């Protein structure tokens, strides 16, 4: 075990994957010699050569298209999109191509092995073009898998599972945790399976569900709730697509209440999907309406970021309201 921050854990995962499998190749804007603007690919070019870790021209649609082509040949591209806010020029290549490659060809061709890594989320005074959380845009797309880690340990295990996956994966990295989140991380290779949520804390009154950087916000909120005698069960969803319905159903069946928190705007966010599914599966167990604590339905602001975000106080209030309903 070694103490790592999330960037180091990601760098370490990439390093292990490249060492293990010569078909793993990392690229993206500034990813090469410089190691990426956040330094997630630091030293990989030095170690594995310019052919396997390199800068691309500044074109996200090109990066995604190039990655699709490379993966369809059987290699394992790990492509970085510099900020998740800039993944949209690649939307067609991801949603119409990556996601449908295997299906449309009857499995003659596929892009399993392809991973898009991208720093995402707010909390860094980035305004609306360096703060977006676009997971829900992709979650409506059969054929993709989506994962979001909450800490360095999770980041390494989920990223290694993504690279090993036979399906294409979008890996969203909460950038505000890059240096802020640190922890013990095993030095050897390990995977954390995709599609499996984790019950981080058991509780009996209400289930609190989140992913990525919102987990620590929820932890603060449930501490406040605990001080008022409310026992919360905390679940880290970890994978958005496919998502672990059964773990959430089991929890809500027990607690009868659900509060979902995400950074992205409320309307059309992934909390909607979860709430819709859970109200259906747990109808007779629900003791209060499922609550969603999310960003406002506006672009991510700059000056009023604090007001905008789904913070611990709003989450705490939603927990209390759910229990008192």
């Amino acid at each position, binding site marked *: 075990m070694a103490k790592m921050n999330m960037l180091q854990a990601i760098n370490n995962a990439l390093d292990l994957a490249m060492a293990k499998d010569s078909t793993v190749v990392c690229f993206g804007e500034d990813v090469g010699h410089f190691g990426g603007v956040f330094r997630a690919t630091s030293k990989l070019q030095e170690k594995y050569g310019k052919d396997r870790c390199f800068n691309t*021209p500044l074109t996200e649609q090109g990066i995604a*298209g190039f990655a699709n*082509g490379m993966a369809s*040949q059987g290699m394992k591209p790990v492509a970085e999109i510099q900020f998740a806010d800039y993944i949209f020029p690649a939307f067609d290549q991801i949603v119409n191509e990556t996601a449908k490659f295997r299906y*449309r060809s009857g499995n*003659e061709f596929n892009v399993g092995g392809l991973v898009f890594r991208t720093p995402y989320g707010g909390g860094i005074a980035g305004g609306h073009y360096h703060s977006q959380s676009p997971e829900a845009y992709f979650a409506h797309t059969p054929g993709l898998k989506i994962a979001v880690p909450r800490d360095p340990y999770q980041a390494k295990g989920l990223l290694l599972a993504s690279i090993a996956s036979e399906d294409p994966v979008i890996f969203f990295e909460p950038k505000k945790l890059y240096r802020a989140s640190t922890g013990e991380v095993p030095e050897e290779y390990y995977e954390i399976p995709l599609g499996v949520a984790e019950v981080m804390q058991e509780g009996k009154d209400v289930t609190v569900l989140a992913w990525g950087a919102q987990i620590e916000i929820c932890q603060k909120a449930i501490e406040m709730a605990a001080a008022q005698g409310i026992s919360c069960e905390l679940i880290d969803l970890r994978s958005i697509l496919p998502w672990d*319905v059964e773990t959430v159903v089991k929890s809500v069946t027990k607690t009868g209440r659900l509060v979902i928190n995400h950074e992205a705007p409320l309307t059309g966010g992934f909390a909607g999907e979860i709430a819709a599914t859970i109200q259906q599966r747990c109808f007779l167990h629900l003791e209060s309406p499922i609550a969603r604590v999310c960003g406002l339905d506006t672009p991510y602001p700059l000056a009023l970021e604090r007001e905008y975000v789904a913070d611990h106080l709003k989450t705490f209030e939603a927990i209390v309201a759910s229990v008192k309903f």
Partner: protein
Amino acid sequence: MTNPNNATISTVHTAEFTSGHALQIPTLRILQDDGTIYPGAVAPELDKETALKMYHSMSFIRVLDERMLAAQRQGRISFYMQCLGEEAATVGSAAALDDKDMIMAQYREQGALRYRGFSLEQFMNQLFSNEKDLGKGRQMPVHYGSKDIYYMTISSPLGTQIPQAAGYAYAQKLRGLANVTICYFGEGAASEGDFHAGLNMAAVHKAPVLFFCRNNGYAISTPANEQFKGDGIACRAVGYGMKAIRVDGADILAVYQATKMAREYALETNEPVLLESIAYRLGAHSSSDDPSGYRSKEEEEQWRKNDPISRFRLWLLAKGWLDDEADKAQIEALRAEILDALKVAEKVAKPGIEHLISDVYAEPIPELERQLAELKAHIRKYPDAYPITSGRMS
């Protein structure tokens, strides 16, 4: 170049524009309409067997197109796309490749597909979306593909295969394969952002791709002069520091020669090459289209004279490699064969219900299994409403 701007710097002191047509690229022509070689031109080396395979691929496709368009008109298939007038461009280029060079096409390259060995049955199974279709009946007619013969399954969104070809070829290079990728697209698709991204990345990352633009004058109803103002597509190559060559797309010898040369260059240097074929889309865009709304019969007639097949046929006849009568008989026979194959394929069952959810992922995710189970229960309740699947559910 050593300056950081990656631009050669030669100084002038008077402001003057470089013209938008400063670069003009000539068109390679070898074979004349009458089947003879242009004075001064030399036919590429071609053995008889290859030449006949080329010819038979073209004539097969010509007959198939004719028949299947008719089948569409009869309502037997839902959609079709001909390649009339462009057979030489795709067959001639495919013939210049190695069998394991990847082909990434747009949709009008059935000539290349046939040259690679796609069988009549395989064509039919795809066109009828039946359970023998390699694509499991999931895509519209003409969206062919086969891993065995290195022909990437067609995808409708235009231009998307262009950066993919760069990535595919880069992977070939990394694996040390002695193969290139050919990437076909229309002059219309060349307006997509993916064109720019793909060509630039192939040049920067040194990926051995032959970018083959079929400039056939139209993108559905949009004529090329409403598509771009440059001199064709080939001149764009300088923007990427890429070599370019333009050929008469109805001249199979020119196409073959240029592609062969481009392939050698790409393989040797890992640099991509841009090829532009100048031909004419003689048929409608697709079975849903009627070109009389946007172009004149006269224009069409003029280009009809420019037939790529008859030219090559005359050349082969003159060489004594083809027998006129035997060839005519063979084409007659082919017509019958196609009709037979069509009748067989249209009776083959559609894919089973499990293929509604297979291949979305390598293994179905639980939610898809749940949805399939629910659907099966529903179909069992209303078998008559779902006649394709209800009779044969496990």
